[in-house]
């Protein structure tokens, strides 16, 4: 049963990653892409969590923690960059 649940979770996460990827490519503006990237990061955190569970390797959780930290810093960094100038249009 756990095997089935893990398979279903991987499937749902992959579909969600695909949706986020479509949004990342389509935009239409830079903040939209940042939101999509941030979602992809938290999806990857969940992915790593399930991988650690599936393979009985809790050491991977450290990777998930660091990824969650850097994803937040990326989002804030992008937001500051957009706010302080940089290129405004997306084209």
């Amino acid at each position, binding site marked *: *049963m*756990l095997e*089935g*649940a*893990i398979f*279903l*979770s991987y499937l*749902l*996460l992959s*579909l*969600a*990653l*695909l*949706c*986020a990827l*479509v*949004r990342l490519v389509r935009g239409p*503006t*830079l*903040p*939209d892409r*940042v*939101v*999509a990237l*941030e*979602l992809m990061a*938290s*999806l990857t*955190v*969940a992915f790593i*969590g*399930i991988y*650690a*569970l599936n393979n009985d390797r*809790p050491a991977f*959780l*450290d990777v*998930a*923690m660091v990824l*969650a*930290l850097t994803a*937040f810093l990326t*989002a*804030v960094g*992008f*937001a*500051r960059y*957009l*706010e302080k100038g940089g290129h*405004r249009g997306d084209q």
Partner: protein
Amino acid sequence: MINDLLVSVMLVAGTFFMFLAGIGVLRMPDLLMRMHATTKAGTLGAGLVMLAVATHFLDAGVTARTLAIILFILLTAPVAAHAIGRAAYFVGVPLWDKMLKDDLKNRYDPDTHILGNPDDDKQP
């Protein structure tokens, strides 16, 4: 056995919410509404998956790390949403044309980055 059942339920529920966040980010009409989906569903989804990991291992070190990740996500997701929303207003991201009202429009001072409040209109 009971443990496996709990883990399975939390995993599927958590990833289902994250899947909804993905669908939301794809289908919602504007940036702010997409952020609704990613902050709420992304937070609860990742939190449930991490709880499932803690329940599966039942180990103090793993539990501490998963709790740290959950706490961190709870603290940062809304802050990131705030930062991106604020940046979006400075960039001038087009918002959905069916918005009922937008109190924040033109409230930011483009030079000083000071955010005013609605009382500003009443003063001459």
